[in-house]
């Protein structure tokens, strides 16, 4: 499903070269739940961005869904992303649209037939326990609800791979537990999950394979 081979990502800040990722290699199989753990600034987000080709590695190869991500054309990148659900720390909900419209929006831009949209949106909202809040605007949601809405938006497209970049980073313990439970359900539904967090305790409670990253280096792969 995912394979990184000796990946380096180096940013240039004037004459200074800053390595964000150094010689990172790992594999994630289909249907796996993998936690990517590391402190803030360790390189988690950089690594995840390489997976959905929001950035390209300076060196090395990134393969996702059997495709060499670095060599994809713009059209192929779009096609790859249609198979990936992404959730961010800030939910990135569109403020001028309701929860329902936020979820429906991505289905519409991907050309989902209109008659299917309502059903799929409500299936996704039910899965995250938000059907009752379908007509609420993002500003009317709690942080946990916003994150659940973002998850609904990600899973409405039935992705093969779910990338969650610190989805619980802004949440208190109770809300974080709810979000994690939903992510587990998505994984149980057959999706491969890559879950990034800076909270080592949270990674431990997930009891899944954990990749620990520190200063851009993969320092541990356990579980």
């Amino acid at each position, binding site marked *: 499903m995912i394979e990184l081979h000796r990946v380096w990502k180096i940013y240039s800040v004037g004459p200074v070269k800053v390595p964000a990722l150094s010689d990172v290699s790992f594999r994630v199989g289909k249907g796996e739940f993998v936690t990517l753990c590391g402190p803030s600034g360790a390189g988690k987000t950089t690594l995840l961005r390489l997976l959905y080709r929001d950035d390209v590695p300076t060196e090395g190869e990134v393969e996702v869904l059997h495709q060499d991500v670095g060599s994809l054309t*713009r059209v192929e990148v779009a096609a790859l992303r*249609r198979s990936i659900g992404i959730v961010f720390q800030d939910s990135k909900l569109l403020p001028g649209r309701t929860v329902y419209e936020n979820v429906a929006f991505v289905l519409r831009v*991907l050309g989902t037939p209109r008659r299917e949209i309502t059903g799929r949106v409500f299936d996704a909202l039910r899965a995250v326990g938000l059907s009752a809040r379908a007509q609420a605007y993002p500003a009317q949601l709690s942080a946990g609800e916003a994150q659940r809405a973002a998850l609904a938006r990600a899973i409405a497209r039935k992705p093969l791979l779910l990338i969650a970049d610190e989805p619980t980073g802004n949440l208190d313990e109770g809300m974080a537990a709810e979000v994690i439970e939903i992510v587990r359900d998505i994984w149980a539904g057959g999706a491969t999950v890559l879950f990034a967090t800076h909270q080592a305790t949270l990674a431990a409670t997930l009891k899944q394979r954990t990749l620990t990253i520190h200063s851009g280096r993969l320092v541990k792969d356990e579980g």
Partner: protein
Amino acid sequence: MFGFLLGEALRDLRRAGRVAISAILLITLSLAALGAFWLLSSNMSEAVTQFRERVKLVVYLRREPGTAEASALVDRVRTMPGVGAVRYVGKAEALGTLRQVLGKDAAVADTLPQNPLPASLEITPTAEGATLEGARALVTRLTALPETDEIGGGVEWMERFAQGQRLLWLFALGVGAVLAVAAILTVTTATTLVLHARRDEMEIMRLVGAPEHVVRLPLLLQGMMQGLLGAMLAIWVLVACYALIGPRIEPLVSETLGVARLTFLRPHNVISLMLAGTLLGGVGGWLARGRPEA
């Protein structure tokens, strides 16, 4: 899908607010100016066409030919390229016409010791012969006739009028072009503002793998809608001005240019203006697209 994209474009148009209105008004202004010149030019063109139909060349003859000779001359001239019709006017007929023209002073003609008017051929050129080049060639051919003394009439003044019309059209294009560039820049600005306002949406669209045309088409459509609205307003302004001013200046135009009725733009002109507006807006929207994602 197109309905959705159109809806997004309308939403963007509302977001652009005053800048979008400025863009629409600028497009209105540029197309109204262009349309007004077009209107003026098409009526002048009508006048030129009518003048051309009335153009006549008069070949004054050295001496009055006999009946058979005159008939042979007419036949010879009729076969010349650029000649539509030929009429022989004898000295007596010319004097009769002069008497008619003089009216109550016709008696003056009777005081003349002899008829001073020459016999002539009145020539109506064909459409080809009524152009500046055609008329020049025809005059050369007629001058070469041994019977010709002098040639009167001509098309120079009419051609100057036509040239004036062409100049007016060039001026219109110049003014229209300047206003069009201004309109494009305003549409670009309006669309760029929208681009910033919908940055989040575009980011989400790209992250979920929406095709690039779906991401960008609403911007193009928004520009085209501004253009179309501007063009429709411009046509409305032209219709209003025509209805208001037309009847007042029609007698003057009829008197000076000989055009009995002013005409409004033809349907294909109106459609062209609407297409031009849509195109202007589309170009503005297209220019504001910015760089696609790497």
